């Protein structure tokens, strides 16, 4: 089980602050693709932290990991 926290407008888009993915292992890229499909989340350019560490697309996420999806916001 992987815990995923959503930030900024992703929360509103998904209708929740967090979700759990019932999967043992997958890459950051696979996770993004899955969430884009299932929840119609816009994840291009969104930063991914696995256990609070910035992670590249090919990083492997394992059960028990905590993922944060952080979209860069733009206003100022």
């Amino acid at each position, binding site marked *: 089980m992987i815990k995923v*926290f959503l*930030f*900024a*407008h*992703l*929360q509103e*888009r998904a209708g929740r*602050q967090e979700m759990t993915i019932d999967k043992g292992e997958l890459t950051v890229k696979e996770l993004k693709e899955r969430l884009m499909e299932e929840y119609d989340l*816009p994840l*291009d*350019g*969104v*930063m991914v*932290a696995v256990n*609070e*560490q*910035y*992670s*590249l*697309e090919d990083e492997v996420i394992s059960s028990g990991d905590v993922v*944060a999806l*952080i*979209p*860069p*916001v*733009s*206003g*100022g």
Partner: protein
Amino acid sequence: MSDRYSRQILFKPIGEAGQGKIAEKHVVVIGAGALGSANAESLVRAGVGRLTIIDRDYVEMSNLHRQQLYTESDAVEGLPKAVAAKNRLEKIHSGVHITACVAEADAEWLSKHANDADLLLDCTDNFDIRFIINDISLKHHVPWIYGSCVGSTGMSYTILPGKTPCLNCLTGSFPMSGGTCDSSGIIAPAVQMVAAYQTTEALKLLVEDYDSLRSGLITFDLWGNQSFTMNVSKAKREDCPSCGENPVYPYLQFENRIKTTVLCGRDTVQIRSPHHTHSLHELEQNLEGLGDMKRNPYLLSFHYEPYRIVFFHDGRTFIHGTNDMNEAKKIYHRLIG
């Protein structure tokens, strides 16, 4: 005059020595909107030697709920923000050398001013300019501090050339922003919080206390009572085109710039972004608060008084209702981020 800074000097990480350093430094504040107001005011009050502030916009009533340098009379007069900012900053502190530029911060302007700056402070509202700031910072070896906010959320990150990962390392591709102050709204405390992070980082840089710099990217949601720090130690890419071993500074190259054209006789400006095609579905969702949208597979159009806006799938945008390229770009960045 030293009494003016007595409480700041009592703070040990600054002290007399730090205060002296602050007074010798030059900060370029890019943007005089909400973040620009808050940061410029704090740095001027802190006694920075020189401050240059650039903005292309003028003060409107809808700015006043979050842009702390401006008053009702600035909005009624429609003063350029850089001018109104300078007026107020000089009343706050007559001893700081303040330069106001009513202009768009582009690669030329930034390149000209970077060599003379100790810090570039990002107070802009769009990623087009942030990627240019990022490349300028790296090319000229001047640190910059990213800051942004929307709704009750915000983030900040400090880029030290040669040390930290850069913005291009972090986002990989050009980010599609999820909402802007003009589409999703903003509350003033989100601005104050980002500015608090940015000003603190600025002070650390100015007193040269590099060890105390915040190394991660911080993001928060004030209404949702959240705060999160992302460690970025694994983010630096050797092949990054902006900060890697063979940098090409892609966002300083002509073909990667935003192109603006006046469509003669049509009271319309066309804007072409080099960074992304438009996801019309995305845009429609991000902008839903602004009224009726018409979408087909080729374009998304809607009224944004007094303009009509058409986003084309191929990355072009029409702003109908103006011949002014700067005005059009301002609207574009407000909507798209």
